[in-house]
């Protein structure tokens, strides 16, 4: 049964991939290329390159596309399900507990403890995006785009969807 193989190939990276989607990419490669031999390393990295330039979460794009390649539309559904469902079910269960006790002093304390950690994680990610941008398009373009988008989104409260669409057009013509 090819569908069981697809399920296992994406279930394992989904359950072992700590640190979000990008962290699970090497694990997916391990299953897809080495264990099941569905594609070569070359093919995998080409798909990954395309996936990285498209929007949206990378792990599900890979699972959806590779599932489709191997097992058609149902294969894509199985790949997506195996990637998303296990940890989502856990989160809904744990999050439900949190919500139920949200007025308890312990949960309030948890919220307080966790905020600095989240700040650091997001700050590091922001830094990574800035340095990627600096390496890619240089300091002036980066400063310009950061400044203008800050003004539009945070000061003028324009919806980020519009600003990102604008950035895409700008990038398409000028970068």
């Amino acid at each position: 049964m090819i569908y069981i193989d697809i399920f296992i190939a994406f279930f394992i990276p989904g359950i072992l991939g700590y640190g979000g989607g990008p962290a699970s990419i090497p694990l997916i490669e391990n299953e897809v290329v080495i264990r099941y031999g569905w594609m070569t390393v070359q093919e995998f990295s080409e798909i990954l390159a395309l996936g990285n330039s498209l929007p949206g979460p990378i792990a599900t794009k890979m699972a959806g596309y590779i599932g489709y390649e191997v097992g058609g539309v149902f294969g894509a559904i199985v790949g997506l399900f195996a990637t998303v469902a296990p940890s989502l079910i856990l989160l809904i269960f744990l999050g439900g507990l949190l919500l139920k006790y949200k007025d308890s002093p312990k949960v309030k304390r948890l919220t307080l403890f966790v905020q600095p950690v989240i700040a650091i994680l997001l700050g590091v990610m922001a830094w990574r995006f800035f340095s990627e941008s600096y390496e890619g398009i240089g300091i002036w373009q980066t400063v310009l785009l950061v400044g203008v988008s800050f003004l539009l989104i945070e000061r003028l409260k324009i919806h980020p969807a519009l600003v990102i669409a604008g950035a895409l057009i700008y990038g398409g013509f000028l970068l």
Partner: protein
Amino acid sequence: MRKHWNLFVAFFRVGMLGFGGGPASIPLIQKEVVDHYKWMDNEEFGDILALANTLPGPIATKLPGYIGYRVARTLGMINAVLATTVPTILLMIVLLTSLSQIREFDWVQGMTAAVVPVVGMMMAVLTWQFAEKAAAGLGWIKTCIFLVIFFIILQMLQVHPGIVIGVLLILALSLPARKRNKGNKEGDHL
């Protein structure tokens, strides 16, 4: 029905605009869920984000799934996950089956390069919001000390965030009376 339409629109936008992989969509999700549709406040969003970080698997599907569930139960969950993932999977399948060479797709790189700093900016603003929130609860001095400690643990010592959050989770939920007394004492001083 309205709820489902809103969920779909919110997470369709998140999926289609999250250039740079799952983590890039975190500030977009926050904007939609907290600022735009007001399905939850920033504290709850932070808690869920922390929880999601302790669990394995992609962040950018766990958050929509959970939020969809909060807003409209199981159907909402399915709706939100599909809205985030399916459009880009379809895009991927269409492009890979229609292009003969990946090279033909190079022009997209220029477009997406301009989105990277925008996402970085949103991420930085969110960082600031969480630091501010932490300071409102802990005070700026404690917050700065915490930030430095966590920075060292996470970045210098490369301890996985899941572990750090897991330990905090256990500490916060298991150290019962002592901390609460301290809180009362502080209250008395005021």
